[in-house]
């Protein structure tokens, strides 16, 4: 059993390695087909032709593409992602600084998506074709259809500008001293250090962007979970559990839901990756200091090393999420554990 599990794991990890190489190639190609001239950017707005050529040589941009690619890959292997022209820091440092904010936002959004999407999916399946089901269907379709930037603006106008219940944008008020980092996740750090005021304030800032980010994820979890629950509730094993007098709640929440969660899990893995990439829009709307905003401001400036770095991080998250999902399958499904 253990050997099977190890082989399964090794296969997944090897596959992830292949995918990683593909990802690296993609980011490199994207950076090189972009229309801007990074050398001109690096040299500055007032630079003359010779200074631009000097910058091109300094950054190795005059070398043939295969050589540049090799330098890029070997740099990555040493953990070097290049230097951001705009911030002047290495991209690695920048990512270490911005990524925790994005991670925190995505974790909360996923928590919202799961804790609302799964119960609503179960409820809709139990109330199939009744008004609750129709209501969640409308909710879910709008969740997928609403453009996040528009929905974000709408929430800002309503809850921040008109009602004044929540702040418009940012991660904390400029007057508030953030807690000393332990995990880098502001809410967690505030909790760990017992700074309840900071925690409450942080929560009020993160709530709107997290809701906007969670909406498409919540909607697809809801729909998939509903469909799978409808299927599971019709299954023979549910009928025999009923015939044997198993507690009805236990039938729904354990016997049926556990089966329905397998396909839902796959959606969660995919949604985590998509969520990371939609931070580009959401963080811009809410001025959230994460990698999405960092990528946007770098791209606008024509600064491509950060964009490549962010793309790489998002891709890595995609892969990590799907690896975790594969492992969870093994935990949930005994047939996979033992082949």
């Amino acid at each position, binding site marked *: 059993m253990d050997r099977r599990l190890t082989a399964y794991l090794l296969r997944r990890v090897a596959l992830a390695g292949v995918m990683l190489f593909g990802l690296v190639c993609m980011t490199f190609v994207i950076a090189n087909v972009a229309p801007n001239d990074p050398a001109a950017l690096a040299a500055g707005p007032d630079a003359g032709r010779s200074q631009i050529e000097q910058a091109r040589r300094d950054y190795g941009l005059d070398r043939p593409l295969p050589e540049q690619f090799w330098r890029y890959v070997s740099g990555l292997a040493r953990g070097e992602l290049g230097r951001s022209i705009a911030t002047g820091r290495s991209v690695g440092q920048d990512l270490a600084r911005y990524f925790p904010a994005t991670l925190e936002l995505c974790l909360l959004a996923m928590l919202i998506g799961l804790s609302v999407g799964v119960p609503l999916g179960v409820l809709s399946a139990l109330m199939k074709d009744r008004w609750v089901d129709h209501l969640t269907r409308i909710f879910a379709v709008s969740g997928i259809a609403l453009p996040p930037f528009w929905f974000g603006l709408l929430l800002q106008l309503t809850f921040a500008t008109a009602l004044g219940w929540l702040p418009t944008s940012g991660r904390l008020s400029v007057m508030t001293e953030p807690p000393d980092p332990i995990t880098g996740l502001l809410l967690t750090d505030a909790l760990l250090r017992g700074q309840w005021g900071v925690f409450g304030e942080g929560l009020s800032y993160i709530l709107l962007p997290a809701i906007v980010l969670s909406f498409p994820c919540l909607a697809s979890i809801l729909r998939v979970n509903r469909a799978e629950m409808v299927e599971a509730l019709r299954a023979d094993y549910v009928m025999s559990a009923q*015939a044997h007098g198993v507690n009805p709640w236990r039938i729904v929440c354990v*016997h049926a839901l556990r089966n329905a969660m397998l396909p839902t899990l796959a959606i969660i893995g995919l949604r985590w990756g998509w969520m990371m990439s939609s931070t580009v829009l959401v963080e811009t709307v809410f001025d959230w200091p994460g990698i999405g905003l960092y990528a946007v401001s770098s791209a606008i400036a024509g600064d491509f090393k950060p964009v490549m770095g962010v793309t790489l991080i998002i891709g890595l998250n995609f892969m990590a999420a799907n690896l975790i999902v594969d492992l969870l399958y093994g935990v949930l499904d005994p047939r996979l554990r*033992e082949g």
Partner: protein
Amino acid sequence: MTPLLAIQDYRLAFDGFDGTAHVLDGIDLQLRAGDTLGVVGESGCGKSVLARSLLRLNPSPPARVVSGQIRFEAEDVLAMPPARLRALRGRRIAMIFQDPASHLNPLLSIGTQMEDAIRGQDSATGRSRPRHAARAHAAALLSAVGLGDAPRLLASHPHQLSGGMRQRVLIAMALAGDPALLVADEPTTALDVTVQAQVLALIAELVRARGLTLMLISHDLGVIAAACARTVVMYAGNIVEDAPTAALLARPLHPYTKGLLAAVPELDRPDIRPRGIPGGIPSLRAPPPGCRFHPRCDRATALCAAEKPALREAIPGRTVACHHAEA
């Protein structure tokens, strides 16, 4: 003496997009404690739907009770509130199913599923039993159905068991609440032939040892002859004949029963070819008027198309629903 189970003029319909199927068309049936009843008929004749009706397991919608009563120990099953229904399921009437592979949850261990059944029945009847006691009960049940090494079995999952073991596990679960009536819906159909005989022998043995009342549904007259003293024959949602099994096999009264028996191959008489019944089962959305069997019956007359025959006592102890059945 009140019968254990009394079904009166029970009609069940399934509503669908393309019309309503009248799946059970006025079932009358009584079972006394200790009876062993076989229900035989072709696929689609409503025998499984009838079995599930006893525990109200037919999903509704689409299933809809049109009329009739099902009384178990004089209590109206169709009018039971949810709590009573739960106390009925498993505790008083237990059921085993055709395909043991799909009727066990693939993701839960055998132990968990058995404990859930035991504890669910406990809570429905206002008892409570700690988890280890439930597990001990589960282990005892497994040995009662001839399965050894209970600790390992309880920790295993359905995919690790053979078909015969799975069906034994389901039988053990059915026994958990010490029910009065065991409903077995094609319990051997999905199994290998050799295993079929073992499972059937186990059911017969449990029925004898525990004094269970048995309702065994099958399309296989051989299975029913081996386990049941009495047999009812169903056709297209009706009971057409009700008789002691031996008498039914020796001398069928209803033309459909005769057809069924003629369709059984006789292994020791290879010169006699089995004969099928011409035609197919009728649509239950638009069933034939009068006797539902008349379009396929070689004795049909104008009366059969006009008037549905009631179950009547043709010979003492035997009833038949046919205008032309000779006594």
